[in-house]
């Protein structure tokens, strides 16, 4: 059994089997797991916002779907992952509060985070093979680099594996 390495909010990390990656309590954020079944090099990013170009304060590239996924992809290739074999799974993007209206733009960012993540993966040519996004609850995720299984845990719900 390898180590379970923790990825914080607005953070990204890569590892290699037997180590695994986790991030805790995704709300409207997205946990993007990218996995190479041939080398078992695995990456996980915990992004908060969809688009770095629409925000002045964008120095932390792991905070955004566009720049965060790009960095994760680059880091994985640098570590020796096989570009053609990469697959992705994403989870999160919940709407934690049902608040309507213009003031809730940041509160309802989950759906836009999911869309931006899908778009960026598509642009990079990384196949999105599974996802568990939306609804109104938080998720803790674990990506296992031996199998590529993505575990999703939520309060009061059964463990989901995608």
């Amino acid at each position: 059994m390898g180590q379970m390495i923790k990825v914080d909010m607005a953070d990204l990390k890569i590892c290699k089997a037997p180590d695994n990656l986790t991030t805790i309590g995704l709300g409207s954020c997205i946990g993007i797991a990218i996995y190479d079944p041939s080398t078992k090099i695995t990456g996980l990013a915990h992004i908060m916002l969809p688009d770095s170009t629409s925000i002045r304060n964008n120095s932390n590239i792991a905070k955004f779907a566009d720049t965060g996924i790009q960095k994760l992809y680059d880091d994985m290739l640098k570590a020796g992952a096989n570009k053609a074999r990469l697959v992705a799974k994403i989870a999160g993007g919940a709407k934690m509060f049902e608040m309507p209206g213009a003031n809730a733009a940041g509160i309802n960012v989950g759906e836009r985070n999911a869309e931006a993540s899908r778009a960026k993966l598509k642009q990079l040519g990384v196949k999105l093979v599974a996802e568990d996004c939306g609804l109104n609850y938080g998720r803790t995720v674990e990506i296992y680099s031996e199998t590529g299984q993505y575990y999703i845990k939520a309060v009061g719900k059964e463990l989901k594996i995608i």
Partner: protein
Amino acid sequence: MLTLDEVNEKYFDVLKEIGNIGAGNATTAIANMLGLRIDMSVPEVAFLPVEKLGSAIGSEEEIIVGILLGVEEDIDGSMMFLMDMASAHHIVNKLMMRDDSYNEPFDEMDLSAIKEVGNIIAGSYLSALSGLTNLTIVPSVPFVAVDMAAAILSVPAVQFGIFGDNALMINTDFSDDLGIKGHFILMPEEDSYAKILTALGVPI
């Protein structure tokens, strides 16, 4: 226009004052509602990187209660009041006149009671802010979530993350026989920081 990180130092003092007055108002309101004498600790203002907000009030996976309200009129934004589960059960049991050992998951009535408490507490803080600034600030109806701390706190983390790298939070202990721990987060839209500080006569 100043960024949030630049205004924070001035804003910090303002929040402390709001915390003091607001928690005082809230204490009185809750005490009246519950028929209890409640003491309040001097509020602390925590200034921390948004990435750390998820673990700011305990373990990231601890289940907590979050109450979210929009604020509008002279300033725009939202605010959140957070309680741990023990505090939420305690308040709901008092309101429902149940034995305090009652520990079942919240039903619809319980959640309504929690929203009502959120309304009162939010109103207390907002009237403190209104009083200090002479701005008209009106809260929306409350929304409640019971979930992992990190997931609930990701909401203010995103709000602050849009403008800067840091978040501000007021921590207050309301203590009666069992103790209620509360955390309050005000999330003005970027333009509203300037309005608050200008209204207070702080040069920006």
